[in-house]
């Protein structure tokens, strides 16, 4: 009998993703579902999807889900986790959601050391609304609201939220990865696993920032988008462990 080497993860619903061709959300959803299964926490997890393309995560990831208003994921997750401290609580947020409208909620949740995990998907634009400038849009990058490119004098520089969160004492583990290559996808999965384990051990705030392609709004092919992450985006947002105090806090 043939051995099954690839199958739908237990916590991914049997449905077709609505995401655009080449979008990173489908990959990241799958990684999250795989990790929940491998850590055997899918039946005690509560997820908080954002406003944005990934609000529909509840149609795909088969766990309890409570939708947050735009940017408020970390506050909603705080409320859930404080009431049910033995459950695993994570938010899934885009860059506009977390680093724009939700900056305050995120920084203060990290500072309080809320024992939650954030999956932060950074594609450098507001995707669902049609490709406007995000806090993370690169200098010179075109968007529908920065025709001619983001100008540092007019629009400010890209905001490195993960770095800011690392300063907060309550944050324990923060890593930036990408899903533009098989190697980076494997690294991303390792990071997501470590982030959830950080929470399972009760150590405090964990976050994985994932550079993710948005070919539709970047006006690129999926292959070009993957290459652009490698060659351009990682110059501003280098892939690295930004903070790791897991050993120290244990």
């Amino acid at each position, binding site marked *: 009998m043939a051995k099954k080497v690839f199958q739908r993860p237990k916590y991914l619903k049997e449905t077709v993703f609505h995401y655009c061709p080449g979008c990173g959300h489908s990959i990241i959803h799958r990684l999250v579902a795989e990790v929940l299964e491998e850590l055997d926490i*899918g*039946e*005690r*997890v*509560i997820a*908080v999807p954002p406003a944005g393309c990934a*609000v529909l995560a*509840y149609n795909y990831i*088969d*766990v*309890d*889900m*409570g*939708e*947050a*208003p735009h940017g*408020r994921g970390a*506050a*909603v*997750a*705080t*409320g*859930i*986790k*404080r*009431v*049910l401290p033995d*459950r*695993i609580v994570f938010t899934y947020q885009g860059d506009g959601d977390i680093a724009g409208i939700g900056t*305050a*909620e995120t*920084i*203060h949740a990290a500072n309080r050391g809320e024992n939650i995990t954030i999956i932060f998907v950074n594609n450098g634009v507001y995707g669902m609304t049609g490709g406007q400038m995000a806090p993370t849009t690169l200098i010179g990058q075109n968007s529908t609201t920065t025709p001619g490119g983001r100008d540092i004098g007019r629009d400010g520089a890209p905001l490195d939220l993960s770095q800011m969160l690392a300063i907060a004492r309550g944050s324990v583990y923060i890593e930036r990865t990408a899903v533009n290559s098989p190697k980076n996808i494997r690294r991303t999965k390792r990071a997501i696993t470590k982030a959830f384990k950080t929470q399972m051990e009760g150590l405090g705030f964990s976050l994985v920032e994932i550079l993710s392609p948005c070919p539709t709004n970047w006006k690129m092919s999926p292959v070009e988008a993957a290459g652009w992450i490698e060659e351009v985006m990682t110059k501003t947002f280098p892939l690295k462990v930004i903070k790791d105090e897991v050993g120290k806090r244990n």
Partner: protein
Amino acid sequence: MGEKLLMRGSHVIGEAAVRAGCRFYAGYPITPQNELTEYTAGAMARLEDGVFIQAESELAAINMVIGASMAGARAMTSSSSPGISLKQEGISYLAAQELPAVIVNTMRGGPGLGNIAPSQGDYFQATRGGGHGDYRTIVLAPASGQELAELTRKAFEYADKYMTPVVILGDGMMGQMMEPVEFPDTIDPDELPPRPSVLDGAGGRPSRIIKSLYLDPSMEEEHNWKLTRKYESMARQISRGEEYLTADARLVVIAYGTAARIAKGAVRRVRDMGLKVGLFRPITLWPYPKRAVLEISRVSKDFLVFEMSTGQMVEDVKLALEGRSNVHFYGRPGGIISTPDEISKVINSLYHRRHLEED
């Protein structure tokens, strides 16, 4: 009921919440309601399962309440007018997601930063939904320390029963007043019937979704009608008010909360002078006790609405009466507290201007 305690209004709400099984409070400092936040901080700390969070903002506080409610807790937040404006986003989501929660608004003078004196300027905001979208919140208007205790209990019961946010609408005067209070029996939250839609991890059951997004307009329309049916049943089941000396009244004053306390004193004074004047005090501001007002209009053809605003509830009185009676208005906005003497003069003058003394 237990012993009688002498307590400040804001402390009564905090104590009544805890005794109603509330185990989650998130709030942000704003005058004149800090005593409630502070009381809750202490009360939650004394409970093994109590959670108190001083949030970084009003927005964060209401969103923490959303999370706590999703997780199954009886949850509360409180603020005063400008802070309640900030919470409206979350209140709209609570209504849309059919999540129970209690929100206390200790109203102060406004608009804008206004002042910290007692006011009733947030009536429209509270009774018309307040945030975006087609929804209502239950709005309760206590007028005494005892009623603060009872209505805080009711607020949690209504929130759970109808799966909806409930607003307790008071003001700085209500919050500061010291009065004797007897609390209803204490509820153990573990003994409350479990709510069906709680998010606690999908162990042994299908996963659940709590959301407010309905991209398909026909689904959103259905959701809106579902909420509306719920609001209609609230209107039938819970709207109420207090009548005082209305049976033979030729003029009935309508006022709520602190204004009703003042008006009651004024009604007593003019009764002593022989004027046939009564008081109707709405206890639920939404749903508005329209039927009771209409019923009184069989006897009294003149109504005087008194508010600590430029005139907001007066619109609901007119809607309830549908042109059947004469509706007059007297208001003092901006944090001015009228005296019973002042109101009795207003009543007296109106009574005679309308020739109500004539048979």
